[in-house]
């Protein structure tokens, strides 16, 4: 009798687990990469000469897969531009505006604008986070002489904004993780 009770106990617990684990999973992928960044759009506006130039870097299918599509325009020499950056996830419908997420967490983000050689533009931050440190979604550009310059735009997550010269746009001591790193060849005419 005891044996029977014991066996019933064992097998009932066993089958409980079995049934539980057999519940149907939808074994297809239904993952939405809501956090993914697929598009970065940098718009430069020069009110003095009524010029608007758009730079785009789009990788609709995320990491891997197809190569990113890069588009760019030409800037006018000796002109002041106001830059603004817009970031989106276009892999889902409706698109997700990541610019807002970054604005909400301005203290944990900073953009860096890095020229290959340092004389084509003079780029300064035009916005601040809650701590009075730069964010870099908005910038002010003094474009100098004609030429072509490779410009790298980097978004760091959780940088050390108190690091030496980080507030003036020097990335070396910033640390953090790179969320965005794109390069445009900018032509100045």
């Amino acid at each position: 009798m005891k044996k029977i009770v014991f066996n019933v106990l064992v097998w009932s617990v066993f089958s409980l687990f079995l049934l539980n684990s057999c519940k149907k999973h939808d074994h297809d992928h239904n993952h939405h990469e809501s956090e993914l960044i697929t598009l970065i759009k940098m718009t430069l506006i020069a009110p003095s000469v009524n010029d608007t130039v758009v730079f785009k870097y789009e990788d609709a299918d995320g990491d891997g897969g197809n190569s990113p599509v890069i588009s760019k325009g030409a800037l006018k020499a000796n002109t002041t531009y106001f830059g603004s950056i817009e970031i989106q996830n276009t892999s889902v419908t409706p698109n997700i505006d990541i610019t807002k997420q970054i604005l909400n967490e301005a203290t944990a983000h900073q953009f860096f604008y890095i020229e290959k050689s340092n004389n084509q533009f003079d780029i300064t931050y035009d916005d601040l986070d809650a701590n009075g440190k730069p964010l870099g979604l908005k910038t002010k550009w003094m474009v100098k002489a004609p030429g072509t310059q490779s410009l790298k735009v980097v978004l760091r997550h959780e940088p050390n904004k108190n690091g030496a010269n980080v507030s003036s746009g020097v990335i070396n001591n910033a640390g953090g993780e790179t969320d965005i790193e794109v390069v445009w060849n900018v032509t100045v005419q």
Partner: protein
Amino acid sequence: MQVVKPILKSFGMSLFSKFLLFFILFFSESVAQKSVMLSGRVLDEATQKPLKDAIIRIHEIKKTAITDEDGYFKINDLPTGHYHLTVSHLGCANKMIHLDLFKDTQIFISINHHSELLQTVYIKSNKKETKYQVNKSKIDDLSALNFAEMAAQIQGVQVLRQGTNVAKPMIDGFYGHRVTLVNQGLILNGQQWGADHAPELDANSADKLTLLKGASSLMYLGNSIGNVLVLENEPLSNDRHIHGQWIYNFVSNGNGHQGLMNMASSNAIFSWKVHGGYKKIGDRNTPNYFLTNTGQEEWNGAITIQKDWNPKHRSTINYSIFSTSLGVLRGSHVGNLTDLKEALTRDVPFFTNNDFSYDIAAPRQEVTHHTWRTEHLWSASPNHQFKAIYGLQYNIRKEFDVRRSNFSNRPSLSIDQVSHMMDLQYIQNDFLKHQLQIGVQSQFIDNYNSANTGINPLLPNYFQFSNGIYGIVSASKEKVWQPQIGIRYDANYYNAYSLDPAQNGTKLQHNFSAIASLAYEPKDWFRVQSTISSIMRNPSISEWYSFGLHQGVSGIEEGNPNLKTEWARKMTISLATNIQKKWFFDVHGYSYWIDNFIYLQPQDSFRLTIRGAFPVFQYQQALAIINGFDATIHAKFSDYISSTWSYHFLRGDQLQSNVPLIGMPPNRLQFQTKFLFPDFKFWTNNQLLFKANYVFRQNHLNANQDFMTPPDAYFLSSIEFQTQVLIKKNNLKAIIKVDNVFDATYRDYLNRLRYFANDIGRNVMVSLQWKF
């Protein structure tokens, strides 16, 4: 000869189990009488030679006996009843035995003398195979370590790490899929891929940890290439008293505290055992700075109930839970190749705090593993035994990365895995004068990515259904020639639901494996053994289907659905000899020749993404060879002083393009000297141990094969003192140990965090073990 019922169980197990015997009890003929005599002999477990001057204490009546030259002892005029004995000997762990004495009784006791020799000199087991083992007292002594570090006490086992918390065992340069981990007969099917997932195992609840390298390794499912690590429990005793132990450990590096409890007893209906453990450690530190976010919190529990229906039938059920939450060095979390290159140049990692903390923030891992197991053992006769095991495992793994805050509490990787396993075994001890083991096994795995991560999973969802059958024949008696041969066939069926629909599909793989070994042992001071293996391993799901960014290794991994089955051929030769039991020599050489060896090949070009460039790794196949040897000399200068020197050499090459294999363990030299001190008052088993480790630089690597050149050679030393105090029938053991005594700054090639930070500095460990 009449056999008393309770003792039959331990005796019966000895015939069948592959475990080493701790003690064998024989009962002599009896005449009913009021006062009885207890006599017996104490033997060295490793050599089966008699031990003189062993002390046998009977606690209930405070009688003591000492063994003579030939290991014999005798205690007269004992009243009948239940007794607890402690057997102690200089240099041995104390052994506790429970006896029901109702007549004159003779017992044979094997105790674990020369515990350091167990790893270096072969063990004379009933399986006639070179076995490597960590026994219970060693597991207790090392309870502050994790599973992989414990396994590394076995010769030939290294630790592959991602920091201090994430560690997996590496055997002859192999890890992950190629090393099967077995917990009480169940295959651990957790996330075996990559270096950044530690096995979900709590070794502290187990009684022994064994590395199987020969034909016995074919007993297990899984996809190893002949290296199996097995955690096992002894059958529970029928002792009505509550026995067990409490352990408290403190580690200074990380300010860690750990408590462990084991308790076992039995009643009229069943025997039981419970285990519990809790550990909390904060940030570890290098000699110069804290490793921020390297804390860990872990808790474990296990309960076992064993029912002996009669001397022939035994049922066991047990449930265990393993739960850990661990931090990964904050500064090791990098966004892209630029970040990685920048991190490589840092003296002190980014995000290093100046203050110690127990906090565990992202990146972190949370893992829970449930195991439910039932076993039935039918000892039909001394020569025939059947065993059936059913096991269910439920693994929940969540890995959290540093993300924008609305995602910060969402895991980046979230996998639920359920597996069912059935195992039927039959052992016959008189099969043509040999021992025959045959078995069939089935396993079903459901691996599911939770859909709430917001990140495309690296691995697809999949089902796996495996069926295997094996047979092993080994010489069952002591002979000069000891052959052993085993064969195994597995059919593995996979059904993967890949992100890329073109790669969805099913795969059916057939693996055939065979291992044969022959040992020649003409004298008790000479033994030579050779093993030849041919083992097939089909690719794993991660090797076929990985696709995407593997954040833990900051690279894009691309699987290849066209990968073919690996075919490993292995040959080993071991030789063990000694001169007058004073100088022991042991050499173990091995050679692997692996067709279609699967490895991650870094690609020449980087993958450009909106986050910058990432290195791309693709799974590829080529012919690979790995050769190595472990050589050990052990010198016993006197009963009080002994030394061990060992050298481990390994070299791996990928032959097709003639480049070294990446991530192979560097060569190392190890030295150890042990001093034993005579018992002083109530202080017994006083030992002082000096250890030194020299790890060479991994020079067998081309300059451009890694992001960073391999770290320099390093030298580490440790000092350990232990003592035991017998308090009535209880035993208190205290260990004080200092690792990295000189606070050396170093980086280890097998630790992935070597890219970012130094390894940990000096660590003082205090361990108190109360055994009752």
